[in-house]
């Protein structure tokens, strides 16, 4: 996902939310259009309001946009070039005015601007561009559509839809009505189509000459690197070029920043095309440290440390990295030593120092102190001085902390600091809270809200979700991304696979794609080259480039310097300096500079294309409701969440599921309390239908009912609060389900009827609005505990866990559904219906699509019945062998016949083996409703390595005509604390998956004991 997507949706949001802004914007938008084609105006006005009142604003706009492209295209055929040109002047001017007026709202203006800029193109180019615009417009429309919370219809209708779209291009008039009628139904179609269109377009473009874009990167020493990049180059291409230029091998700590419209800087995603991320021309970046190495001495090369020093000098001089007076002086003195060498009273006159900036407000006293300290560093080589510098700088409390302004749930200004260890919360300069990565279960954002879900504190019973309000949606997303990246970089051994782009995806697919710190360290050990020579240059002094050409000093913040500033940085830079005019704005304004305008258009279009790749499903009314909430509502939600939390904490510590738990356990309650069944069914059905049928408001109500009913079932003391909290929770959970799937954590595939349904409904949340990331600590120490707490938070406190801990995570897909069948007639009905209605599609759709088709297949096999694959039956069962009895109930989720057996109390410490057996039978039988499979074959293989013993047990059974192969691996990892058990487990799971790619992991059982860990995995 790219930032652009976010902005688009944001645009609409803003339009809705900020009435004034939207109003202001509209004239601008419409004016050009009316100029462009007067005849189109009446039609625009005619265009009826969108179906729902809430969306009325965005809907007309979208239609208008859709119309525009075709208009412009049609027009372009007839209007003479000069006319077009003239128009472009006007439009561009308008844009400039707008920007000045409201720099912060620049995003809103984007579409207009883009469109305008495309106009100046002539001849065939013009045609191509208009098509691009059209394309883009279409995508915008789609985005808008999303804002209208219409449910999505089945994909089958799409072809027809597509056609109509194509037609639309040719005949503007006829289609308009069509569109309005069938808009809701079409929505999904459009999405699907988009991809194809894209392909066409790309092909079309290839026919044209390859375009390049001038690109400038301000380096850490203040010099500038220029090159021309192919228009469709990814961020990685540029980054590699820069690193090559810098002769930097340990480059994973670095990144490229670009300025967003709102003066905020964002990291360029290397895996994506630049043009999709950077909207403004020219492409201007700064090369910066992205991940500050916690221990710079572990860097392999001096040159890497040098660049880190340069970054830190900037950070310190700008005040981003606060230092005491003494530290300013000390670090400054190391800088002098590194840059100038030993203090030389003859060479270094008293003012030699003033050309350096050591602190935001540098005093004479400080300079004197710096000189005094400089004298004491005699004999330190530049590299040594850098090392000393870093040794001191790394201990600064704000070293490597990326600060983001936010407000807490009470509206108090705070700052969120993302760092290697986790998330820090500051009020003023004070740290008021801290969430280490292992403590964070989930990170998500929704609109301008940012949420973290944290595991319970030592004496607390329940997880809590903490919400923060960011200044805007982009900020929330930026923060979320930074969190995802930092967590991955510092805590994981290898990055997670980004979620595959499957049919239906919700939330952001963003994942950190670079190397993790562990990987980059590993890679660094392979560096085998003589220490490269590099020239140190003070960032604030005029210096010489490597090839001796004079280089202007660049102000870091102002990139539009005079042409003389364009750097001729070094030899071997392809196409350097092509972009001679540093003032990008002026160029854009000038109508004769076609290429640039074109680039803009292009970039825009492509950024929209990204949206096309992220397919949204929007058919949840729950989500709709949530999305439509005013800020106040959201804050209220947050407040009620914290109220809920408080409530929990104050209430008796009687084991009690939290909001999420409740949902998951619901089927259980259904089962045990038959009287509720029909309620349950009633609730479920509509929700199911939602997946298929354009959602009606009623559905939403039902869904809410479901929640309301559920709350009492679980007997929380706070059921009253549930409703208030619900919707936000819902969203998070839902997304969570998907993420889990993406992550591939089998045990995490925890879904349960209602939860699932709501998930499918919330899946419509536009991807931009909801981002979700689950820092799952595969490698880190928290993993197991995390699971445990998540699912049976009531059981015990961490202290106890430490001593001895047995966790069983079972994914009981078949059981739950069978439970329904067995115990409740109505539920069976529900299954049937869902089967009919959903079929395979519902499986994928409402479900975590990319979640695991494999797994689903597997389940089919296991159950021998289609309905069981139904989404709503993937409860996670966790069994803890420790005394607390609560477990029993959760286990009950499994098959009714098995229940009695299982629920017989687990004796405190049970052998993992035993437990495994206990769980196996329900899982096998569950789907068939008591039809025990026939054992065909069984074999056991044992292998040993230094610290692990692997026992593989393969059984083949036939049941209900379906054969099932079950591979059970028991891996015993023994060793002292030196062994990273989590890593070993992760490795084992990975290996198992590789060995049996066609199978899926359905259960992972981990048994840990103090000093000894025994981990078992079952496939």
């Amino acid at each position: 996902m790219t930032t652009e997507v976010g902005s688009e949706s944001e645009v609409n949001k803003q339009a809705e939310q900020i009435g004034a802004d939207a109003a202001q914007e509209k004239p601008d938008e419409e004016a050009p259009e009316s100029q462009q084609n007067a005849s189109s105006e009446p039609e625009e006005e005619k265009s009826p309001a969108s179906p729902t009142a809430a969306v009325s604003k965005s809907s007309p706009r979208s239609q208008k946009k859709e119309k525009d492209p075709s208009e412009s295209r049609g027009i372009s055929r007839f209007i003479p070039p000069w006319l077009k040109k003239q128009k472009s002047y006007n439009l561009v001017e308008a844009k400039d005015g707008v920007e000045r007026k409201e720099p912060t709202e620049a995003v809103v203006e984007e579409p207009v601007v883009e469109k305008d800029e495309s106009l100046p193109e002539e001849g065939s180019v013009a045609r191509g561009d208009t098509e691009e615009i059209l394309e883009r417009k279409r995508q915008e429309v789609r985005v808008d559509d999303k804002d209208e919370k219409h449910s999505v219809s089945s994909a089958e209708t799409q072809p027809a839809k597509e056609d109509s779209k194509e037609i639309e291009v040719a005949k503007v008039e006829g289609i308009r009505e069509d569109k309005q009628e069938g808009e809701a139904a079409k929505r999904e179609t459009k999405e699907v189509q988009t991809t194809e269109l894209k392909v066409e377009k790309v092909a079309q473009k290839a026919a044209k000459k390859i375009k390049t874009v001038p690109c400038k990167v301000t380096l850490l020493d203040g010099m500038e690197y220029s090159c021309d990049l192919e228009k469709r180059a990814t961020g990685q291409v540029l980054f590699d070029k820069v690193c090559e230029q810098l002769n930097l091998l340990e480059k994973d700590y670095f990144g490229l920043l670009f300025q967003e419209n709102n003066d905020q800087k964002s990291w360029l995603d290397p895996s994506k095309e630049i043009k999709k991320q950077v909207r403004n021309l020219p492409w201007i970046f700064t090369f910066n440290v992205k991940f500050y190495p916690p221990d710079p001495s572990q860097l392999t090369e001096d040159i890497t440390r040098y660049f880190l020093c340069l970054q830190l000098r900037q950070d310190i001089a700008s005040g981003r990295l606060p230092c005491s007076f003494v530290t300013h002086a000390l670090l400054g003195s190391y800088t002098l030593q590194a840059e100038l060498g030993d203090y030389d009273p003859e060479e270094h006159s008293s003012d030699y120092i003033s050309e350096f900036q050591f602190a935001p407000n540098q005093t004479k006293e400080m300079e004197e102190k710096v000189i005094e300290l400089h004298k004491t560093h005699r004999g330190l080589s530049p590299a040594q001085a850098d090392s000393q510098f870093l040794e001191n700088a790394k201990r600064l409390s704000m070293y490597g902390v990326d600060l983001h302004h936010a407000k807490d749930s009470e509206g108090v200004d705070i700052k969120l600091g993302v760092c290697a260890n986790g998330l820090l919360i500051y009020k003023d300069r004070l740290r008021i809270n801290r969430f280490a990565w292992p403590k964070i279960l989930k990170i998500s954002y929704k609109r301008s809200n940012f949420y973290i879900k944290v595991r319970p504190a030592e004496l607390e019973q329940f997880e809590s979700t903490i919400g923060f309000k960011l200044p805007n949606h982009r900020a929330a997303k930026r923060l979320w991304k930074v969190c995802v990246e930092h967590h991955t970089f510092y805590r994981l051994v290898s990055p997670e696979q980004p979620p595959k782009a499957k049919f239906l995806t919700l939330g952001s697919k963003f994942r950190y794609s670079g190397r993790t710190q562990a990987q980059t360290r590993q890679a660094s050990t392979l560096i085998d080259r003589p220490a490269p020579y590099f020239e140190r240059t003070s960032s604030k002094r005029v210096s010489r480039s490597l090839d001796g050409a004079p280089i202007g000093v660049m102000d870091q913040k102002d990139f539009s310097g005079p042409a003389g500033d364009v750097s001729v940085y070094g030899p071997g830079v392809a196409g350097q300096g092509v972009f001679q005019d540093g003032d990008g704005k002026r160029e854009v304004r000038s109508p004769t500079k076609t290429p640039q305008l074109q680039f803009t258009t292009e970039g825009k279009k492509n950024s929209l294309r990204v949206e096309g790749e992220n397919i949204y499903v929007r058919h949840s009314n729950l989500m709709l409701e949530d999305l439509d909430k005013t800020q106040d509502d959201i804050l209220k939600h947050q407040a009620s969440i914290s109220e809920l939390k408080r409530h929990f904490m104050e209430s008796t510590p009687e084991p009690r599921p939290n909001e999420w738990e409740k949902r998951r356990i619901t089927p259980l309650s259904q089962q045990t309390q038959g009287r509720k069944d029909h309620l349950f069914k009633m609730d479920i059905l509509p929700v199911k239908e939602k997946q298929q049928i354009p959602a009606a408001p009623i559905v939403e109500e039902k869904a809410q009912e479901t929640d309301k009913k559920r709350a009492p079932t679980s007997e929380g003391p706070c059921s009253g609060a549930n409703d208030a909290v619900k919707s936000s929770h819902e969203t998070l959970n839902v997304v969570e389900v998907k993420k889990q799937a993406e992550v591939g954590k089998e045990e995490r595939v925890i879904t349960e009827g209602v939860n699932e349904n709501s998930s499918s409904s919330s899946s419509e949340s536009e991807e931009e609005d909801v981002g979700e990331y689950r820092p799952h600590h595969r490698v880190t120490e928290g993993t197991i505990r995390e699971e445990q707490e998540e699912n049976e938070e009531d059981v015990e406190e961490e202290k106890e866990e430490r001593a001895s801990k047995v966790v069983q995570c079972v994914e009981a897909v078949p059981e739950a559904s069978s439970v329904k069948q067995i115990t409740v007639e109505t539920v069976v009905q529900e299954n049937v219906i869902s089967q009919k209605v959903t079929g395979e599609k519902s499986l994928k759709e409402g479900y975590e699509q990319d979640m695991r088709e494999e797994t689903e297949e597997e389940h089919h096999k296991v159950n021998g019945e289609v309905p069981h694959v139904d989404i709503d039956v993937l409860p996670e069962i966790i069994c803890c062998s420790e005394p607390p009895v609560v477990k029993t109930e959760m286990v009950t989720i499994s098959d009714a016949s098995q229940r009695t057996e299982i629920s017989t109390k687990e004796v405190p410490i049970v052998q993992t083996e035993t437990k495994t057996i206990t769980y196996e039978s329900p899982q096998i039988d569950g789907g068939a409703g008591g039809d025990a499979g026939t054992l065909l074959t069984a074999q056991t293989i044992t292998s040993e390595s230094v610290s692990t013993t692997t026992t593989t047990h393969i059984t083949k059974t036939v049941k209900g005509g379906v054969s099932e192969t079950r591979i059970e691996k028991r891996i015993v990892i023994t060793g002292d604390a030196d062994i990273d058990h989590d890593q070993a487990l992760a490795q084992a799971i990975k290996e198992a998956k590789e060995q049996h790619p066609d199978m899926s992991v359905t259960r992972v059982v981990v048994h840990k004991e103090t000093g000894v860990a025994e981990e078992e995995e079952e496939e």
Partner: protein
Amino acid sequence: MGTPGEGLGRCSHALIRGVPESLGKEREGVAVGIPPLDLAKAQREHGVLGGKLRQRLGLQLLELPPEEQLPLGPLLGDTAVVHGDTALITRPWSPARRPEVDGVRRALQDLGLRIVEIKDENATLDGTDVLFTGREFFVGLSKWTNHRGAEIVADTFRDFAVSTVPVSGPSHLRGLCGMGGPRTVVAGSSEAAQKAVRAMAALTDHPYASLTLPDDAAADCLFLRPGLPGASPFLLHRGGGDLPNSQEVLQKLPDVTLVPVSCSELEKAGAGLSSLCLVLSTRPHS
């Protein structure tokens, strides 16, 4: 800045202030509510403390003269937060105690420290609500210290993380916990103390060992490393006469020489070891 944690307890000087006779008299003004104490005993305790600081620990001892109008003057730990070459002169919560800072400021200035003043009238800060662990600061938000006061601590010692710790009950943060070593937090066993320790554990980036003592007051100890770098450290703590139950646990602290002192009489006036003396190093970067 030195090696993290190694800076803890580096000291060359200790500053104390004599016990005025007013402390033993009828309570009035600020000292209202404090039970009458045995002035002679209090002065004796104070004298012994000074002696230990000078002779046992080898610190240069500066003793400010008592001032009768400042009965709580001996508790000068509340009047300044000293780290490295910087002394933050506090703004005690009790207005009656604010004049106490003047003498301390002068003394610290004479020792060559950089003096930072609190100018914000909304800030209150008692020095004994500040715990420096060698790596970071914790500021107890107690009855005496407010957020603004804590913020000024953060502003003064910018190299370090400064975290706030809610302190419940009638204690200062230092009355509940202290440092038993560069990586060891000692804390009392009261609910308030344990809560504070948990809060600190959640806020810190650094792992500390934690040692729980039966008495909260025993946790108010001073880890001191006088003399040259590498010299063996001392732990100045309340002795067996004061707090017999905690002595055994204190023995568990590794690598420190225990130096017991008594201040049970002064304790009645709210004093603890951290408030009775200010230790500092005039060569913080050596």
